């Protein structure tokens, strides 16, 4: 099988749970992406889950090999391609089910990426255009007010009217095939269509393989943000898909602010999300007190880290890590925290700093709490914040601290 990935990293864009057993090999070369490091991945899949993988790549004239076996550990070698990789650069041990092992799994596991962009609907609900008799458009006050789609046999596929916050779609036998529920505060929005259903001309999605089909796509309205979102602006959409014959629910998802949330059912398989991040079932249902706060802060991906911070709670992290508050900028919702790094020795390698400084920030749009690690030399929130934006006096800094006082944002979202 040959897989082609576009618009994304080489490990994305394919869905491995459909491959129950076997190996997947992914090769990257410069003909696909001139910027990419040439290399390859070899995944071993057992019972629909990646059990282990090997990743080889070349970067800056060095050759690397990474071996990961979930529940066992990770080894990273560096060397010369000609003589194979002999130098062990890093060895990480982790127990199965710990956050760090999930992190490794998450970063490299291709399954985690396919569902992120909300294609749940697109793959499952189709209406045959050849069976559609007509589509009535409603207008009023010079604007579009809705439409009704009727099959040739007179059955109504759906009727959508301006302002509706839920919609049932039937097949040509009158059987329910999908239910969409959207909740949004429309006050002040320039485009208040809460649901944009099938074949609204500007939103139909043609099936590449069968031009007579168009897919149902329910999505959040675009371009209708407020400049200062309130809690009530958090946009929620829920989609349920039924098997027409049995009326059994085969897929169900909930999106908040375009991020998948909670337990997601897709083709009878369950997946688990926090703020758009796919995590394992074990992690999803784990009690916050069972998760190691130090591990949470070490998760490299900021979005994954923020999701676990949400699960564990920032206050609990501050308490468990014995963080001390250096500065609290209440006006802008920033905090600069200091955490003493324990030297455990042995298995866990902690290099360099004995202190970790963390800038706690709150996303202005989603209100999600993020943490960013900053150098231990910064002493104020402003200094820490500016450092993350590239202001400093080292040679690689984008903006010179000696020339730039601070950054003031014309707009920040």
């Amino acid at each position: 099988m040959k897989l082609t990935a576009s618009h994304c990293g080489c490990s994305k864009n394919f869905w491995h749970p459909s491959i129950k057993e076997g190996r997947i090999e992914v090769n990257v070369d410069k003909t696909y992406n001139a910027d990419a490091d040439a290399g390859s991945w070899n995944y071993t899949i057992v019972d629909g889950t990646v059990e282990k993988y090997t990743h080889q790549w070349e970067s800056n004239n060095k050759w690397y090999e990474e071996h990961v076996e979930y529940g066992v550990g990770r080894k990273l070698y560096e060397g010369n391609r000609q003589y194979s990789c002999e130098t062990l650069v890093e060895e990480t041990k982790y127990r199965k089910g710990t956050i760090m092992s999930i992190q490794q799994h998450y970063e490299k596991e291709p399954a985690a990426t396919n569902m992120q962009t909300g294609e749940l609907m697109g793959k499952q609900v189709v209406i045959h255009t050849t069976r559609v008799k007509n589509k009535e458009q409603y207008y009023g006050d010079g604007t579009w007010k809705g439409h009704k789609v009727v099959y040739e046999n007179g059955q109504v596929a759906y009727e959508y009217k301006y302002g509706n916050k839920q919609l049932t779609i039937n097949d040509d036998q009158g059987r329910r095939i999908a239910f969409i529920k959207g909740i949004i505060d429309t006050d002040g929005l320039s485009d208040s269509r809460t649901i944009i259903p099938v074949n609204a001309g500007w939103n139909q999605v043609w099936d590449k393989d069968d031009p007579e089909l168009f897919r149902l796509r329910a999505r959040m309205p675009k371009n209708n943000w407020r400049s200062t979102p309130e809690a009530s602006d958090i946009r929620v959409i829920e989609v349920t898909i039924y098997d027409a014959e049995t009326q059994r629910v085969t897929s169900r998802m909930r999106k908040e602010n375009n991020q998948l949330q909670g337990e997601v059912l897709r083709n009878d398989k369950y997946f688990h999300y926090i703020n758009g991040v796919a995590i394992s079932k074990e992690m999803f249902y784990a009690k916050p007190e069972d998760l190691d706060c130090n591990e949470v802060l070490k998760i490299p991906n900021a979005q994954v880290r923020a999701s676990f911070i949400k699960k564990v709670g920032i206050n609990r992290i501050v308490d468990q890590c014995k963080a001390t508050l250096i500065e609290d900028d209440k006006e802008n919702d920033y905090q600069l925290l200091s955490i003493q790094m324990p030297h455990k020795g042995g298995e866990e390698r902690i290099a360099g700093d004995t202190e970790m400084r963390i800038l706690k920030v709150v996303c202005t749009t989603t209100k999600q709490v993020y943490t960013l690690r900053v150098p231990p030399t910064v002493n104020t929130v402003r200094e820490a914040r500016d450092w993350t934006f590239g202001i400093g006096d080292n040679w690689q800094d984008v903006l010179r601290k000696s020339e730039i006082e601070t950054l003031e944002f014309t707009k920040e979202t």
Partner: protein
Amino acid sequence: MENSKRKMCCFRQGEIIIVPRDLTNKNSRTTNYIKKGDGIIREGEASGHFHKLSGGTLYVNPRDENDMWLDNQLETIELTHDEHAPIKIPKGAWKVIIQREYSDEMNTYVRD
């Protein structure tokens, strides 16, 4: 020297910061940069959502995908993302900065 320091007006969408190009590090050379036709500044590893420009020309350093600048000849263009409000960017040459994070081994760019 203190008086010569400037407050820079710029834009921010998540981990993406847009600042006037002429105020950035003067040593940076951009002659070998290549056009990035899709206008996508960054794609989230976890979410799959991306920061995308509606127009202008995005240039990227072939040796460092995080080193970009934007040439906008239009009145305004829009930077969009599924989870953030869109931002209108005026005409001009802009430096694209990815927010960074400290590590005692090597600083990294914020990934979402």
